[in-house]
């Protein structure tokens, strides 16, 4: 009964989405207030209906109702409760339902919080959101219904892929989707602005919080995914340039560019058509990511759908959305004239540089991701683009980017003084030289990359602090004034500094963990010890072990520091019964200084076991840095200026009239 109610709720939601996707747009075009007013109501109603449907599916999972096909295929009575719930989105149909749920929540949020948006703009934004909803709801209802029944109901379900039974991954998809789908709001604002033929600073101010929120969630989502790969796959790596990872990374790069270009629109009333284009591209890349990951074009743990009709449906939808919005853009963008004149050496110039580098990096990732697929489709040749390509492209592109991040905030709008900015960055330059000296001393100049990374970290980290110190007049004014300045500093400024510091931590983590990592692979017998970096691992043996829904061979290691046992690590090989599958469970002892990481492979008591042991210095800084970047985003989001109750468009119009 309850699954049928969920199904009906989805059908009703589709009807409402149609209403929301058509009437407000027509109403805005013809000036019919009654139709315009339908938008918010339809958006709220849709949110309630989809949330209800999602609740129904969750209920089916929690109660292990195997008469629902989706539950029978992906759940199991023995599964812990957390994974019963996360199993809802651990499969194709459920993950799409989550996608829509987030979409309609964002739509409802625009309807609820966008009170001071001009009526026609709001109607159009909601209309576009409605159309996206129509696309995804019909996709679910016509090709991927999660409420299909399975009769007679089996007594037991198939279970969830054990690799997905993990807390990091339970929350990875929701965050990723909050990011992907959050960019739909920026997209809807961009298309609405194109229809209206108007982009101004007020528009940028309305778009920015949505973009910023989506960006923060996406950052967290990607970090969670990378963290999962690090500890669950047992390969010791944290980023593989896998197409699935790239699919989430491309919208992030475009979104980061959008975040920065929207500032230029807001402050200088220029760079408009580029910003609108970025908003369209960012969401298009999110859709492309969904398509790549969900259609089965790329085979991986994420590719739930292998049914070609689904792939064709998403592809058509993608063509329609991207093609339609770009056609509208081509038609309308020339009308979006910028006002300000551009000097290359200025804050906006630095932001343009940021945008260029991010856009090129994004295009390079796109090329590397799509080329193998395109070649396969054209002549059936199988190629792959290895991590070497991405590293070879990414490092030269991000180096100037990171270097410029320290300088940009010190340049003034309109006309910056590079020499003055560099003078103010003197402490950062000194810090960089010290870092380089330390690097040279530690490495004898063996690794150029290590020096580059260390230098950049010091330059950016200290540079960001310099900028903050200048703003609050640290040491240049009495402590009381500094304190009151710090208190008076807008949250957005704090957010920027924190986010940029996050980048510095990230670069530091990547550099140090890549260069100073120690890896030992060998066969060990119980009682043997081996030196790995600063510690010694002593192998104690392997014992059988039984978990709730698996059996395991568990290895035991003692970790010795200067002869004293400081830790015990227990990596395991698990064997799950349902579905039958083996997984490697790395044992990791994380700390800020570095992670100890142990994996045990096959073997027996006579010949010994194959083991892989690591010392990974500062590796946790990578995820810490990403989280701090997201934290900076949230700080900035809480700025009063961005609150959706903030300045109306009238002021900028008055200013424009006065000029």
């Amino acid at each position: 009964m309850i699954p049928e109610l969920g199904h009906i709720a989805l059908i009703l939601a589709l009807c409402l989405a149609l209403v929301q996707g058509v009437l407000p747009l027509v109403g805005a075009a013809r000036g019919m207030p009654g139709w315009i007013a339908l938008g918010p109501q339809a958006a709220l109603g849709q949110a309630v209906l989809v949330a209800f449907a999602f609740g129904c599916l969750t209920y089916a999972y929690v109660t292990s109702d195997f008469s629902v096909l989706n539950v029978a295929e992906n759940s199991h009575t023995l599964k812990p409760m957390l994974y019963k719930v996360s199993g809802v989105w651990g499969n194709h149909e459920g993950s799409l339902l989550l996608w829509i749920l987030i979409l309609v929540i964002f739509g409802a949020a625009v309807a609820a919080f966008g009170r001071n948006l001009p009526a026609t703009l709001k109607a159009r934004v909601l209309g576009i959101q409605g159309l996206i909803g129509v696309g995804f709801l019909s996709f679910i209802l016509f090709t991927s219904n999660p409420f299909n029944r399975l009769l007679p109901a089996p007594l037991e379900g198939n279970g969830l892929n054990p690799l997905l039974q993990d807390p990091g991954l339970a929350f990875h998809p929701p965050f990723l989707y909050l990011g992907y789908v959050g960019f739909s709001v920026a997209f809807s604002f961009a298309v609405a602005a194109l229809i209206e033929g108007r982009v101004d600073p007020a528009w940028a101010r309305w778009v920015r919080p949505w973009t910023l929120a989506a960006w923060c969630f996406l950052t967290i989502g990607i970090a969670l995914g990378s963290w999962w790969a690090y500890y669950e796959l047992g390969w010791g790596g944290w980023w593989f340039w896998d197409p699935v990872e790239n699919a989430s990374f491309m919208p992030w790069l475009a979104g980061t560019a959008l975040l920065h270009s929207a500032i230029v629109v807001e402050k200088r009333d220029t760079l408009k058509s580029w910003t609108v284009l970025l908003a369209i591209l960012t969401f298009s890349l999110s859709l492309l990511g969904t398509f790549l990951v969900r259609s089965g074009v790329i085979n991986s743990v994420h590719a739930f759908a292998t049914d070609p009709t689904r792939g064709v449906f998403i592809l058509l939808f993608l063509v329609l959305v991207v093609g339609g919005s770009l056609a509208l853009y081509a038609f309308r963008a020339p009308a979006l004239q910028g006002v300000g004149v551009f000097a290359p050496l200025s804050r906006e110039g630095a932001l343009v540089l940021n945008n260029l580098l991010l856009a090129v990096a994004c295009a390079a990732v796109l090329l590397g991701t799509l080329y193998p697929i395109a070649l396969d489709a054209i002549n059936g040749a199988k190629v792959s683009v290895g991590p070497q390509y991405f590293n070879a492209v990414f490092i030269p592109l991000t180096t100037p980017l990171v270097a410029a991040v320290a300088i940009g905030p010190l340049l003034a709008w309109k006309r910056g003084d590079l020499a003055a900015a560099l003078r103010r960055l003197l402490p950062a330059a000194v810090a960089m030289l010290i870092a380089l000296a330390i690097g040279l001393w530690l490495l004898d100049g063996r690794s150029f990359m290590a020096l580059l990374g260390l230098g950049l970290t010091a330059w950016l980290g200290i540079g960001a602090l310099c900028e903050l110190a200048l703003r609050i007049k640290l040491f240049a004014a009495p402590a009381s004034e500094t304190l009151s300045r710090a208190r008076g500093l807008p949250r957005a400024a704090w957010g920027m500094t924190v986010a940029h510091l996050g980048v510095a931590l990230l670069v530091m983590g990547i550099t140090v963990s890549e260069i100073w990592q120690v890896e030992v692979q060998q066969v060990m017998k119980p009682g043997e010890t081996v030196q790995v970096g600063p510690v010694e691992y002593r192998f104690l043996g392997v014992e059988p072990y039984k978990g709730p829904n698996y059996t395991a061979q568990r290895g035991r290691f003692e970790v010795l520091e200067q002869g004293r046992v400081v830790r015990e690590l227990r990596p395991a090989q698990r064997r799950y019964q349902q579905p039958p599958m083996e997984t490697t469970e790395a044992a990791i002892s994380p700390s800020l200084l570095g992670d100890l990481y142990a994996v045990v492979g096959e073997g027996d008591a006579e010949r010994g076991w194959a083991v892989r042991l690591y010392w990974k210095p500062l590796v946790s800084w990578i995820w810490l840095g990403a989280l701090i970047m997201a934290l900076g985003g949230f700080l900035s989001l809480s700025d009063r200026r961005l609150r959706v109750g903030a300045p109306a468009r009238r002021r900028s119009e008055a200013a424009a009239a006065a000029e």
Partner: protein
Amino acid sequence: MTRKRKRLLAVLGLLSGLGIATALVLSAFNDNLVFFHSPSDVAEKQLPAGRLFRLGGLVEAGSVKKDGLNTDFIVTDLRATIPVRYTGILPDLFREGQGVVANGRLDAEGRFVATEVLAKHDENYMPPEVADALKKSGQWHEKSGDHTKLVKPGS
């Protein structure tokens, strides 16, 4: 400098920057394309030793020999075979009779030295390249056991 001249310089600088970036991307791209070959391809095309490529096929039943960390096995597309050596811990789902994809190079004796053996996430999963290689070698049977089960059982 006039404003026009300044703008021209800025545009030129921008374009040359973009040009450099494009050149960088494309050359890196060319150097790092990794081709996929089946054992039949390797036999027919006389691939040179030392070039990185991906090898895919089935792990021949009874061919896996382990010696400490070294594993020797034979990859086959049921028409041609090639010996492979890998040093390190193999992924969880490495089995005799199952599909496998490995990155590596041929050595002087025609043995494929794998630097990476790819883990797959599902027991019944067949790498698409391997499925294609089997189809090409005419050895693909829709009913050959698990090979057809690209989807989870039950669906």
